[in-house]
Structure formats: C-alpha cells, structure tokens
C-alpha cells in the first residue's frame, strides 16, 4: 500500500495548495497544529489501534498535524456534542451516528467542498449517507462509512430444528425462534435505549408491516399496519426471545451470542469479526471454532415488504474549532484511498464505505460470510420514513419512541394503547415549527 506523503496529499487534494507544495513544508497553519478527534469505541478494536498507532502518526508526518483521538461509548457522544457546543470548546472533529448531523447542523462548519470532491472521486455517495449528512444544500458532515446490520445466527442450531435456510418471513422466524427457545437458545434482541441495535431492528420491523412515521408531513403512525406489528411482537417476544433484551445495550447481544446464550441476533458484523479474531477463545459446544458456525441473513419480510436500517457514520467539523481548516484537510487526507483503505480493511466488512467504489474492493472476496454486508446499505431506509430524516426524526430517535412502542407492548401495555401513546408523542414533535 502506498504511503501518502505530504507532497502527494497536497497534489491530490487541491491545486490551490501548489504554492505550499513549492515551499516544501507543511502549510504554516498546520505546523504544530493540534486537533482533537472524538469517535466511538469501535466494535472492531483493531481499527482503533490502527488509527492510534499508525494512521495518526502518518498524519503528523504528512500534514504536520497532531491529532489526538478520544474514543467513548457511542451512547455518550451526544452528551459530549451538547457540552462542547454550548461551552464553545471541545474536539475539533466529532464522529456522529445516524441522522445526528441534522440536530447539530448549525454548529458545524460547511464541508460541502470536500464532500463534493469525495463524491466525484469515489463513485458517488450512498443515498442514506447523503440523507443524514446534508442539510438543505449544504453538507453538515463528511460521510465516512455505514455499519451494516444483519442477523448473525448459529447455523447448526437452526439445522437442529430443521430450518436449513434462514426464515424469510416473520411468521417463519417466530416459529423457528419458538423451537430454539425451547432448546435453550432463544433469539436475542435489545429493546433498550441504545443507539444501534434497537433502532436497527424496530424501524425496519415497523416498515416491514407497512407502518411508517409520517406521510407528507402528517403523522400516520397510528395505522392498522403499526397495530398489527405491535400485536405480533408481543407474542413473538415471549415465545422466541430472551426477555432480558429489554435491558440490553448494544454490547449485551455480542456477549450473549459469543458465550452461546442466544441463537440469533440483529447486529453489525462485530460478533463474527470477534469470533474470527479469537477462534481459540470462542467455540461451539462441540469444541469447534464458533466462527465456522456463524452465518448472516437479512431481517425477514412482513406484509409491507423487507427493509433494513443501517447506521451511517459521518464526521462533523465543529464551528467552535480554531483549526477548522486543518480539520478539513485532515479529513480530506484521511479519506484518500490509500489511507481509507487501511481502515476499511481493518474493519473486515463491519463497516462499508460511504462511497460506492469500495463495493469493488478485493476484501469482499476473502470471506463469503461477510459478503452479505457489501451491498447491505444500498437497501436501507432512513428514520422518519416516509418523511426526511430531519431534526424531528432525530428527536423521535433521541426519545426512543419507536423502540418504546414495542418495549411498552411486550411489557404488558395493550397494543392499541402503545400505538396511541407513540403516535401522540410523534404528533407533539412533528407539530413543532
């Protein structure tokens, strides 16, 4: 893999920087510039190590910018953004998940110039990444990647109950789950207040029954389709799921699956990637490596179709940053192909790139188990459907209303009441100017 030198970077990134190139040194602003970069603690720890140990050191050599990477639990990013914006000080670059850039657009630097170049250079940006990071005509964040969500399941346990192909409808999945739970291997799914797995399950589940939040600006959640989805879920949960899932965050299902407690769970590829990394540690009850018993499948379909929601990741350059220019240059450099490739490969398919060109990368040919993730993001819908994933949709997510719609029902609230409650909450949010 080619090393990106300062010269190559400057040549590639902007002709306007030719003068700086001629001076044969890092741009004056960048010399000694320090940037703070806040990201989540990656579910693929090798990628955080790569960033810390290799990529940031190269950035310092190539750009003269010292970047300090801070990683936190993803659920703690939003509170950090709030405190940073309100106090006017904090990390220069902040990673965001989902449609959060819509909430913070007023506090970010316009990055339209670098996103447009990225779009042009790397085969176009996926629609979902565009929808979350662009606010009106301006880009509030630079699309980085998307975490694909598929069901990871134990092939041998499904075979044991006579299910050789993964169930393609909710009814079939429920029947399989019933048998698996009877065998001591329930399905695992969080319905807790957490950023990833909970919305990645609940929203597509709602859509697959034909339910949706809004239509032409009007809240339409209280539909027959939504009600049917809730009714089905109450039985499905008790019969097939590990009911502890109500208290799970995004890490519990990983631990439960890797320790052989659950047979299937909607997740990013982190379970498989971890099993792959430590085949000696994670084994089946027969003593064979767990990785060889894991398969991936899309969420089943319902009467309304088959849908998915994947988690877009973007980077915001904060308006309060005194080094916004350096931050933008760092992001340009980071997403140049040779640099991005290192990170992309380290993810082993856990994240797909925000741009389409990376679908062609040879990494996808290395492991057929990961192949379903390659084009997963192309089929995803976004929050707030069929409205835009704007700040109101982000607020619905921040209040976990769609997740609680199901969590309340499985805890005993009447389905009609749960739907009425969630619709009422949505109406309050969407009636705001």
């Amino acid at each position, binding site marked *: 893999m080619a090393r990106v030198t300062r010269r190559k970077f400057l040549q590639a990134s902007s002709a306007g920087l030719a003068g700086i190139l001629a001076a044969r040194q890092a741009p004056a602003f960048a010399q000694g510039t320090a940037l703070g970069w806040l990201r989540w603690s990656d579910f693929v720890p090798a990628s955080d190590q790569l960033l810390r140990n290799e990529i940031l050191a190269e950035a310092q050599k190539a750009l003269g910018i010292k970047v300090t990477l801070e990683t936190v639990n993803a659920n703690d990013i939003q509170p950090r953004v709030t405190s940073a914006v309100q106090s006017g000080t904090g990390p220069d670059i902040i990673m965001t998940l989902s449609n959060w850039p819509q*909430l913070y657009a007023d506090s970010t630097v316009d990055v339209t110039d670098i996103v447009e170049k990225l779009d042009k250079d790397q085969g176009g940006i996926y629609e979902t990444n565009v929808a979350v990071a662009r606010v009106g005509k301006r880009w509030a964040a630079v699309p980085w990647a998307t975490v694909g969500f598929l069901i990871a399941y134990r092939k041998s346990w499904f075979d044991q109950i006579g299910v050789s192909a993964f169930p393609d409808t909710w009814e079939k999945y429920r029947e399989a789950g019933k048998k698996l739970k009877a065998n001591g291997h329930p399905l695992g799914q969080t319905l807790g*207040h957490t950023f990833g797995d909970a919305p990645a399950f609940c929203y597509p589940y709602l859509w697959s029954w034909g339910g949706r939040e809004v239509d032409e600006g009007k809240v339409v959640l209280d539909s027959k389709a939504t009600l049917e989805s809730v009714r089905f879920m109450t039985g499905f949960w008790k019969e097939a799921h590990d009911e502890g899932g109500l208290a799970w965050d995004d890490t519990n299902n990983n631990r439960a699956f890797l320790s052989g*407690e659950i047979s299937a769970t909607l997740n990013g590829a982190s379970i498989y990637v971890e099993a792959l990394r430590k085949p000696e540690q994670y084994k089946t009850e027969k003593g064979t490596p767990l990785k060889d018993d894991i398969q991936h499948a899309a969420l089943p379909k319902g009467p309304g179709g088959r849908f998915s929601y994947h988690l877009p990741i973007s980077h915001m350059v904060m308006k309060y940053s005194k080094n916004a220019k350096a931050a933008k240059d760092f992001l340009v450099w980071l997403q140049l192909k040779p640099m991005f490739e290192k990170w992309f490969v380290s993810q082993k398919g856990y994240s797909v790139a925000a741009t389409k060109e990376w679908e062609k990368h040879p990494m996808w040919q290395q492991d057929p188990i990961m192949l379903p993730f390659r084009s997963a993001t192309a089929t995803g819908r976004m929050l707030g459907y069929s409205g835009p994933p704007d700040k109101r949709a982000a607020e619905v997510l921040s*209040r976990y209303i769609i997740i609680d719609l199901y*969590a*309340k029902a499985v805890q005993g609230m009447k389905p009609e009441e749960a739907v009425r*409650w969630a619709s009422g909450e949505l109406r309050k949010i969407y009636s705001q100017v």
Partner: protein
Amino acid sequence: MSSIAPAHQRKRLGGSHWTGIAENERILALALLAPAVVILSTFIAYPFVMAIWFALTSIRVGDPGEFIGLANFAKAWHDSIFQTAFKNTVFYTSWATIFKLTLGMCLALLLNRHFRLKRIVRASMLLPFIIPTVLSTFAWRWMFDPTFSVVNWLLYRTGFITNRLPFLSDGDWAMWCAILVNTWRGMPFFAITLLAGLQTINPDLHEAAALDGANAWHRFWHVTWPLLLPVTLVVVVFSVIQTFSDFQLIYVLTGGGPANSTHLVATYAYQLGVGAGLLGEGAAISLFMFPVLFAVVWIQLRYLRRIEGA
C-alpha cells in the same frame, strides 16, 4: 476587642493596618463569608438562574432560541414520559427513604451496643457510602445483568429458580432493584448520623424507664425516638433532597429503562437536555424538582422548629 489596646500599642504589636481590618468584625465576617458566597454563586446560583432562563426559551444545542414564556413547562406537563418520570421519582424517593430510615435506625441501635470489633464494624459500615456511586452501581449492574447475573446463577445453582429473574428487564423489578441499590448506598449515612444522635441520649433516661418497668420497645418509643426525632428529621430532609434529584445511580444501572419505567426527573431532563440537545425543555423539566424539594424542606424544617420550640 478593639477597645483593649490603644491604637499606638496595636501598631507596635505589628501589622497595624491589617490587624485593624482583622479586628473589624464586619470586615472579618465578610471575608469569612466571601469564599462560600463566591462558590455558591458560581456553582449554584448562576446555573440555577441560567436554568430558569433556558427554561423560558426555545434554546437547543447550537441555537440560542427565543423567549417563549412558560411553553416548555406546559409541554413537559403534558408529556407522558415526564409524567411517568415524576411518578417514578416520588415512588423511588418515598420507598428508598422509608427503607433507609428503617434499616439505618436498626443498624444504629445495633451499633450503639458494646461488642468486640465495634470500631472496625462501624468503619466498614461506611464503605457503601464512601465508594463512588458510579463504581458501586456498575458492580450492581453486573450482578443484575440480564444474561450473566451472578445472583441468578447462584439461585439457579442452588435450585431456588428455574428461570432467570428479570432484575433489570422488567419495569417493576428494575425499579425495586434501583431502590435496593439506593438503600444499600444511603443506609450508612442514616445509621452513622442516627448513631451520633443516640450517643447524645443520657443512659440514665433508659435506666429510669427500665426501673419503671418499660420494656425495650417502650424504651425506644417513649425515650429514644422522641429524643432522636430532630436528628432524624434533618437526615430525612438531606436524604429526600439527594434521592429526589438522584441521577448517577439510575443513569448507570438502567439508563431509565426499560421503556422509561425507571426514568427519574433528573435522568429524563438529562436525556432531553444534554442527550437530545433540547436544552430549554430539559431545563424546564429539571426545574419541576425545585418546588417539590422546597416544599419538603419547608414542611420538615417548620415541624422541626415546632418540636424544638415545644
């Protein structure tokens, strides 16, 4: 004091100017009060005033918003999650305080007796209170883990249960677990304060009551309890304030879940204000705590004054 030595002698004693200032009681009082006033103004009064201002505006993260009067309060009042959180807060505070008081009193009465290793037991009793809340709550969270709970494992292994108990995954269970952890953590504060109160009670009173034929319960109810009441009320006031505005314990243990069933006013205010960036709404919700706590403090202190006056 200033009349003791004439001015010229004071000068000889050294630091004429400063001694003069130090001996002026008004200035000394101001100087001693100043640090407390500065700290309270900076960390209590300023945030409180800002919270009131935020609550009256439509401020969101990165958007200063505009003055909207009491709209945030009205919105919170009609918000079903806020209503749940408020009820939860009252429930949580009431039961946790009752348990802390009852168990703390029992513990104090036990520790007031003479036994071997008394000092070590008294000191170790304070451990839950000393350990940072976040750390101890994390330990409890692991003990109540939906999948790997050591309590479930133990009960299952000893044959008491066949299915896991839903410690944190059932709304009611989760609330009682939170009350249990709060009681575990807060009980030592009650016990040590009540113990201090117990030790001020003259043993002669108990002896006299015993001679008059009072049994243990009568001695507690007619001698100990009335004499301990002022201390008890003070400790209950402190505890109610802390429990009603509790945040850390719920944030770490349940995050307010499942489905808001353990959300307290403070955790919901945080979720909206800091998590979702709706600072105005978050501030309005947090301010709902103020009148309740003010009323509790006022009633209890009034009662206390009446007892002292009697």
